[in-house]
């Protein structure tokens, strides 16, 4: 780890002020990506602005068919929330399958989506459930939020404050873990939402994406068989030591099929 200045602001306003005053600052939420990155000396920010002191940023509420989760809410709290479990059980499942217990008790939903790791789980839920991301400056629709590998629509210094998930009629998440890291090698979140069926895929490509052919097929028949025959193109998908693009493409179909089966209970 290189030297950096550490700050723990007491308000969002103070956090933004610290950020704008620093040379090369980084916000930190749960730190589950940032701290390992720092330890491996892969990043050398001048200032770390720890958002962990902003208690108002954490919390879960359900009202008017919307589950609203504060950006600093930890994965373990989402996983164990009776309200989330009742409203969108797939979201509680997803949170409970992230990383390991240590990660789940430190990592936060806001940190996860702001980091936009291509193999993170939450982006699939945000996109499939057509959530709205609230920030210190505006609201951003899910489809507009994730723009690339580790890239989002957030402007420099903009902080995610909460994520609002409309309750879906049916939803489920299935993932195939990377055997070594246990990150999602392919994760598929399917949801029957007010605006139709949405299928979001994480892990397979540089950024989360929607699988329109599956959405159309599931819109007609929300059954595993509806997607079983849909071949996903490997073009543009990730390839690494653990999985070729072709295998990832195949797994998208398999995970989608299993997610629909799970959603149908």
């Amino acid at each position, binding site marked *: 780890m290189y030297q950096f200045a550490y700050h723990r602001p007491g308000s969002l306003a103070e956090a933004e002020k610290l950020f704008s005053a620093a040379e090369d600052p980084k916000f930190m939420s749960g730190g589950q990506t940032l701290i390992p990155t720092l330890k491996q000396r892969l990043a050398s920010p001048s200032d770390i602005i720890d958002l962990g002191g902003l208690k108002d940023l954490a919390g879960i509420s359900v009202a008017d068919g919307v589950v609203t989760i504060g950006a600093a809410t930890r994965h373990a709290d989402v996983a164990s929330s009776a309200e989330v479990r009742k409203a969108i059980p797939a979201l509680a499942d997803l949170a409970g399958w992230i990383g390991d217990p240590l990660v789940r008790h430190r990592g936060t939903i806001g940190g996860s989506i702001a980091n936009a790791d291509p193999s993170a789980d939450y982006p699939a839920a945000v996109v499939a459930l057509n959530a709205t991301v609230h920030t210190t400056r505006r609201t951003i629709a899910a489809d507009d939020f994730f723009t690339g590998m580790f890239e989002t629509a957030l402007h420099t210094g903009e902080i995610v404050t909460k994520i609002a998930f409309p309750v879906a009629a049916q939803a489920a998440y299935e993932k195939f873990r990377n*055997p070594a*890291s246990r990150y999602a090698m392919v994760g598929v979140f399917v949801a029957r939402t007010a605006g139709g069926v949405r299928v979001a895929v994480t892990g397979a490509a540089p950024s989360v994406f929607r699988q329109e052919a599956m959405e159309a097929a599931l819109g007609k028949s929300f059954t595993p068989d509806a997607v079983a025959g849909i071949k996903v193109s490997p073009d543009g998908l990730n390839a690494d*030591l*653990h999985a070729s693009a072709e295998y990832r493409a195949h797994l998208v179909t398999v995970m989608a099929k299993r997610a629909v089966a799970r959603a149908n209970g």
Partner: protein
Amino acid sequence: MTATGIGASPRRKEDFRFITGKGNYTDDINRAGQTFACFVRSPHAHATIGRIDAAAALAMPGVVAVLTGQDMADDGIGGLICGWMVHSKDGSPMKAGPHPALAQGKVRYCGDCVAVVIAESYAQAKDAAEAVAVDYHPLAAVVDAKAALGPDAPLVHDEIAHNMVFDWELGNYKETVDAFTAAAKVVSLDIVNNRLIPNAMEPRAAIGDYDSGTGIHTLYTTSQNPHVARLVLSAFIGIAPEHKLRVIAPDVGGGFGSKIFIYAEETVCVWAARRVGRPVKWTGERSESFLSDAHGRDHHTHAALALDAGGRITGLRVKTIANLGAYLSTFASSVPTYLYATLLSGQYDIPAIYAEVQGVYTHTAPVDAYRGAGRPEATFVVERIVEEAARQLGEDPAEFRRRNFIRSFPHQTPVIMAYDIGDYEASLDKAMQLIDYDGFPGRRRASEAAGKRRGIGLSTYIEACGIAPSAAVGSLGAGVGLWESAEVRVNPTGSVEVLTGSHSHGQGHETTFAQLVSERLGVPLENVEIVHGDTDKVQFGMGTYGSRSGAVGMSAIAKALDKVEAKAKKIAAHLMEAAPGDIEFKDGRFTVAGTDKSLTFPEVSLAAYVGHKFPTSEIEPGLKESAFYDPLNFTFPAGCHICEVEIDPDTGVVRIERFVAVDDFGVIINPMIVEGQVHGGIAQGIGQALLEHGIYSEDGQLLTGSFMDYTMPRAGDLPSFQLGLTTTRCPSNPLGMKGCGEAGAIAAPPAVINAITDALQIRDFAMPATPERVWRAANAVALAAE
């Protein structure tokens, strides 16, 4: 059997300390005035080094020194050595390139040590290490051993043509050729044994400390064999005379072979401590472990089996190319030769075996012994090709094995080993019964009905442990004898200290060795202290590896205990005014036969030290005996492991549904600890078969340099193992023990791969069986049609 004697399973004495954070590992030790070392490591697999400019680093806060290979050479410090001489077929000695602890003019693998920065804190040393400017001129690299033999391959050591360290052979060539000529059937197979990275829980660490008053160097280090480390550092590397060098290996958190060797880092720390006049500490980071711990396996093999018309094996021919990495690690040459080809007979009566092994340099981390060391590689070859032969004959693999088993002992194989005892059919039968072998077809049908594939695979393995008779290994090229020593010190109050040359780094010696003492002297377990890991305390020792601490280390203790008992009986005879021959010793009590006169062990112990009541001119006071035990033979643990897998063809995921291990370890001291050893070994074996793979890019970058990419087995990857035992007492040592530390890692990989190839009905499948590769194999026809 008592509650704490041989055959009992008392809880491990050492565990309370470990699980409450009271262990004393090298990194827990801090010396006054200590500095910290950080190594500058090569980012290139192959490069010449021009200037090393340390000026900027030396100017940084807290930096004490920056030292290079030139500084070591100037101080007359020699390079690291390989301690086992192997000769090629033509009689020429193996060709070993120099191995400086800090590179001199050239780097040969990613992670090779180039310089060391010593500073007041580790963070300062690490910051400064980045500021050391090294002028590298990168050269072409070769990482694959087969490619390294090619005519145009880059040379790892300029003076060694074709990167060939040795071209070695073993066996009866002519008889083997004849067997193949006469064979009714020949079965052949190309086999790859994947490179593994050990990953002991505790990374390697070292502290060098130098006392200018006495001239004594002390090295605290993560070693499986501190005396061997001292011998090598003193006699070959030239750190200090042996009597001026103390090596302490305190608690060590796992080794699996990787901590047998004498590495660059501890050599540098113990040398640099004198140079800078302060203790120097280095604790490896996990990334450094991946890069620089000696790796394991990495063989390419072509094997052929000759069969007669009755399905009997008449010959085996094996040609192996073994990747040895960029330098020869301490025992690198012995692993793919004398620890490998000597086991190629397996459990089978094979009259003719001929093996050729080419040891090859590549631009990768050195490869040396890793749990099993040569024996997993041999077992994988034998058990894969035997399975293939059975399938080609259309025969049940169990019955094919049964027909070819060795049935009379001792049995001399054509590849040196003389098996002393065994009952291979007993372990096969028991394993088949435990896994419900006969019920397998029904289970396979059920899996198929659910869209899955199911397979079963056997592995009837043998290994050679208890390494080894000194004269035998000496004749094969070992630079050391492989006996073990022990000293048993009985205190005046009857408590006992055992100083052993074995070293415990997870094996539980503090418990099992104490059980032997408890059994023999009748003292409670808590009155026995096992002392190991310090060259100032222990007389000498060859250390722990190759499942030798029971068969060899405990035999030495048993021998010393014999002497203690004999002397104590003489003293007891005087005390009770009886003839020594009339003294019986049982359950900690000396009795005059046929009388009610008796003395307890502590009473005799005290009398031995007081010296009032026996003639000290005839019997020396005190009760302390030592012994050096040189084994008569290797020991030959053997058994049968059977694996049953279910494969999901949609994803390629292999689930191990059943895993049965029936082992013959001879006499067992602590069944609970043995079970733990078997569990750990199987986990590593399944890890090799399904998950683990050390992969370099073509230009020599380690691609699996962290747990993000190197797949360690986790509990969830493993089933509940069903274990069983069969027992033939080992006739070659006084306790009848064979050893159990490596069996799982040796037996499991072929069992798993045999099960997978059975499930998929394919001929071969290279390890590790990762999901994508299994998916491709399971859907080969459909994928080919696309």
